[in-house]
């Protein structure tokens, strides 16, 4: 294990990875008067520099090295600022950096001719900087700074088209459920996302500070090195609550149940933003946080952290199911993708939670992170392709598309490739292998309810395949819709988007297949890296947790010598075997869901509307289309009723009480200020009098 400390050599690039985009963001406004091209190229250049810096430390990460460099920050509180580039952070950082580059290049064409490009590029760069800060920082406090940064960038970019033109809305106009409108303007969506994220952030902040109160540090490494804080917190039954509160931040950021409602409205932003922030990177920050702190809490397994991991598992499972069901009925392409994003992140959470409930932590951990990687690739690709389609047909509804296969050949092919990965077509797609790994880890865990989790996972997989094929079918197959015909009648032929636009998503789609072909070997490699990483940094091996060398960890087992052997021997035992049952169920899920989707939407043997024309299906459809009424409940409980209550409070408390008190405070201050001014006569005689009186008073005070 290579370790680089401090600023020297390669250590500086770990700092620069997240600083470069911030510098770029500060630089962009200077180009205010330059042409659009220069603005875009400069922004792309900054993202490429950051990505190259990330690439420069990739070999270190793959060889299980790490960079840990710290400088004093708040010396009064003994808090250091630092970067911690361990294999987890390095891989994530590269993923974020290179997907950003692809999406930045795509943006050049997608945002062509838009107003306020400066604002767009500023926030995009600001976003990457904050995201890399989350990934690379070595303590929870800096993570939180990045956390707020991405939240802010997300808010600003969701509401990018702040003039609220009707065409930038999401949802069908006039669609209400329980009296709450289900269609939203960009500004409204931005605020909604910001507020729901705040709910998570408040939880995270309180969890962080609870731990800080007992440990006196935010650092990941410091928390692991001296575990007495965990012991004290356990005695007061605060350890699991604190961990769950931190997870609350992840719930908010990753749009998991019950804070899932913001992600769908977030689709009001430009599609490039949806691709970068609301599919490939920012929503993964929650998963990354769990991956960051999960091993820490697992290493504390002496204190029985099972409840924490159970909560993670079930939040993931419920979200996966909840959002997959809704994706089936939604008519908007971006919203289907958004639902699917939330649902797939549910899978990742599920895997990370299950990891903590198994003896073999690394399996589930690898599966969760593997799915993160594969999802980032294919979902970014899908979003960008969807953006290309939106760009062409000027509508977000899938029944305004249809039959685009003919005219948008390239988009069709790459969209299909990425879709196959989402639907997890067997053996050749990255999505298949990562989902299979999750299935296997669920099956192999010794969690008592793992069979239920598995059932949910398979159900979701069936639905995923179904809605993926539905989407592909509605967009590319069948007859061209009225809208498409209208566009063509007006003389605008539907044709392929330009090269700058299709190349980025083509590359990502091909990558998800190319890695998919060698998916199993890829997974094995990842498994190996994480097994070594977890063993060397956290002492987590296949045989449970062993104390690290030189750490003051509370010892769980007395057989230290035996465990030491496990560390050294651990890396050889981490080979991966296929779980046949997982593979079979994965293939079956694809088969069932995919076949149904194929029949109804591609082959079109029957009109889905006619098939579902009965009372039960209609009620079900309505229930799903109204988002399980969760959004309505959220608005009633979170907005309408509190506002009504607040109006009361305002009327009686604010209007009568406070408006009685406030002016008197103000008046008394003003009167006192007048007195102070009146003393200031401007006459030197007065001044001299006060001066001499002062000397006498002070001397008397001293002598008393």
């Amino acid at each position: 294990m290579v370790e680089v400390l401090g600023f020297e050599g390669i250590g500086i690039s770990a700092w620069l990875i997240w600083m470069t985009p911030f510098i770029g963001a500060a630089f962009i406004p200077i180009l205010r008067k330059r042409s659009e091209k220069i603005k875009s190229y400069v922004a792309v250049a900054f993202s490429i520099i950051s990505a190259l810096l990330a690439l420069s430390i990739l070999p270190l990460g793959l060889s299980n090295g790490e960079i840990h460099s710290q400088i004093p920050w708040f010396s009064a509180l003994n808090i250091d600022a630092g970067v911690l580039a361990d294999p987890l952070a390095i891989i994530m950082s590269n993923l974020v950096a290179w997907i950003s580059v692809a999406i930045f290049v795509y943006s050049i064409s997608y945002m062509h001719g838009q107003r306020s490009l400066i604002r767009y590029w500023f926030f995009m760069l600001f976003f990457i900087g904050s995201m890399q800060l989350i990934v690379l920082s070595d303590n929870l406090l800096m993570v939180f700074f990045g956390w707020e940064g991405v939240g802010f960038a997300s808010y600003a970019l969701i509401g990018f088209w702040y003039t609220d033109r009707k065409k930038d809305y999401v949802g069908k106009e006039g669609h209400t459920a329980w009296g709450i409108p289900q269609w939203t303007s960009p500004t409204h969506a931005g605020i909604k996302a910001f507020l729901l994220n705040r709910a998570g952030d408040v939880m995270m902040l309180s969890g962080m500070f609870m731990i800080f109160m007992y440990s006196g540090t935010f650092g990941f490494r410091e928390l692991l090195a001296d575990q007495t804080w965990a012991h004290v917190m356990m005695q007061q039954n605060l350890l699991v609550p604190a961990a769950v509160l931190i997870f609350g931040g992840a719930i908010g950021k990753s749009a998991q149940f019950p804070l899932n409602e913001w992600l769908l409205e977030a689709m009001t932003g430009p599609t490039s933003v949806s691709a970068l922030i609301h599919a490939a990177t920012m929503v993964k920050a929650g998963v990354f946080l769990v991956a960051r702190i999960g091993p820490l809490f697992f290493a504390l397994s002496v204190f029985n952290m099972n409840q924490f991991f159970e909560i993670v598992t079930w939040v993931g499972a419920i979200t996966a199911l909840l959002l997959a069901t809704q994706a089936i009925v939604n008519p908007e392409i971006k919203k289907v993708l958004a639902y699917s994003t939330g649902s797939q992140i549910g899978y990742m959470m599920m895997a990370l939670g299950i990891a903590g409930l198994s003896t073999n932590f690394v399996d589930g951990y690898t599966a969760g992170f593997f799915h993160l990687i594969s999802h980032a690739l294919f979902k970014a690709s899908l979003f960008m392709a969807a953006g290309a389609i939106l760009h062409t047909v000027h509508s977000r509804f899938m029944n305004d598309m249809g039959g685009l296969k003919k005219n948008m050949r390239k988009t069709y092919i790459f969209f299909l490739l990425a879709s196959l990965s989402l639907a997890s077509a067997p053996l050749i797609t990255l999505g298949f292998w990562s989902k299979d790994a999750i299935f296997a880890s669920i099956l192999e865990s010794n969690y008592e309810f793992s069979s239920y989790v598995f059932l949910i996972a398979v159900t979701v997989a069936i639905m995923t395949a179904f809605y993926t094929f539905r989407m592909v079918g509605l967009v590319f197959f069948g007859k061209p819709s009225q809208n498409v015909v209208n566009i063509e009648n007006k003389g605008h032929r539907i044709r392929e988007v330009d090269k700058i636009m299709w190349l980025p998503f083509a590359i990502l789609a091909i990558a998800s297949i190319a890695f998919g072909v060698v998916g199993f070997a890829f997974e094995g490699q990842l498994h190996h890296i994480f097994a070594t990483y977890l063993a060397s940094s956290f002492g987590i091996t296949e045989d449970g947790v062993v104390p690290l060398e030189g750490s003051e960890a509370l010892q769980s087992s007395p057989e230290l010598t035996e465990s030491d052997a496990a560390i050294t021997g651990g890396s050889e035992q981490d080979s991966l075997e296929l779980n046949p049952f997982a593979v079979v169920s994965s293939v079956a899920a694809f088969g069932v869901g995919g076949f149904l989707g194929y029949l109804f939407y591609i082959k079109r043997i029957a009109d889905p509307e006619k098939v579902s024309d009965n009372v039960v299906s209609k009620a079900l459809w309505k229930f799903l289309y109204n988002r399980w009424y969760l959004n309505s409940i959220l608005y009633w409980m979170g907005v309408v009723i509190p506002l009504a209550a607040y109006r009361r409070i305002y009327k009686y408390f604010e209007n009568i009480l406070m408006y009685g008190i406030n002016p008197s405070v103000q008046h008394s201050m003003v009167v006192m200020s007048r007195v102070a001014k009146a003393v200031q006569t401007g006459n030197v005689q007065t001044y001299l009098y006060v001066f001499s009186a002062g000397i006498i008073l002070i001397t008397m005070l001293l002598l008393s």
Partner: protein
Amino acid sequence: MIDIFSTPALVTIILGSVALLIPILDALNKERGAKNKVYSAISFGALALALIVVIYRIFSGENLPAMSLTNTGVIGDDIFGAFFSIAFLIVSIMVTVSSWSYMKKRSNHAAYYSLILLSSIGMILIGYSTDFVMLLVAWELMSIPTYALAAFNKKDPISNEASIKYFLFGALSSAIIVLAMGIVYGLTGTTNIYDSIVAMSQLNPDLIPFGLLAVGLFIAGFGFKMGLVPFHMWLPDTYSGAPTTVATLLAAGTKKAGFAAAIRVIVIGMIALNVHWTFTLAIIAIFTMTLGNLGALTQKSIPRILAYSSIAQAGYILIGLAVAPYSDYGLDASLLQIMNHAVMKSAAFIAAAGVIITLAGYTLEKYKGLGFRMPITAFVFAIALLALAGVPPLSGFWGKYLIFGAAIDSGQTIWWGPYLAIAGILNSALSLGYYAWIIRKMYMEEGENRVRQKEPKSIVAVLLFALGFMIIFGIWYGPLLDLASMAVPNDLIHLISAK
């Protein structure tokens, strides 16, 4: 006796020679008054060189003492002096650079820059003095040029009034300082500061009242420059009447020199006499903060608001001095705040100077809609005001945070410590009443004139520097605090107060 290569000597030589050179150059020049830019650039160069010398000496590896009191000479080469010199030099640089624009349409440039440099030498020497006589000489060297500078708009009666008031009280306070020094000399028989500390701590109990009288006179004499209540009366009139750049020098520079002298003499020197004297400082601190803030609350003119606010700020800094014997970082915090305040207050005054040049007015009404009319000036002004109010994460926050923290800490030994913190926090809240009011005027109201103005370049440059300082040292205040801690002779304070 004085090492020619010690920092204070080098700095004196650099600044002094330039200060004398400028009037000579002007005399040789036939065309009078057209060389503003040249003189400004020369003075800037000299000050920057001096700053480099000071900073280099701190980090050059020579082990400088925190405060060289045992020195038998009149000037010590120590980090305490260096710390204050950095503050003074930064202020002087900001003043000279902004004068590039401010003095453009005025006369007598040579004298102006020369006087600023001479005053800077005085301030720096105060920071380094280890002897009462040297201190007095430096004090006068600092003060006398500023009397002339305050009256620099010689046809403006307000400027003259400002100068006369300033001069009267300056003369009075100098006399009081000399009197206090005389008493100390009479009691101890030495003019060296350290020797008199030692002698004071072994003073005959019958003579202690005389020692305390000397302390009281020192507080009055130095308190005049610091703007402590009740020695502050001249201050609002002078700061608002003097040319705004000169007011900057007074508020951010000479005021800090008062603190340097106060720490050297009163705090360090007189702990020896009786530790309980600090209660007096605490009471002065509370009155100073409150009166400053109350006075500022209903003013209409921006320089006057800033003048009162600088009285209030002196109160905050004084808290750190008052709790110095009881807290480990009271003085560190005060020094940090002194450095921060030097930059924040300079930024605010210089922004006001920019407005005066461009809009020819200093009343609050003129600031309506400034956010649009002069965007950079208004933005930095707003940030400086927020920093003065102590809003995190700006640099002013950390100074206040540490000062109040030290006051609360000191509650373990003295009952009144936490009350100082409470008074300070309430005053900070009160001060937002006028700081936020100005920001509101600038950004949320529109004046009659909505034309965007060209902002004076050199002032913009100074303001951007200050902006960077306030934000960078707000997020990462570590280096500043480390430097401040290096300058505080903690062991000395403990040693003396233990006696």
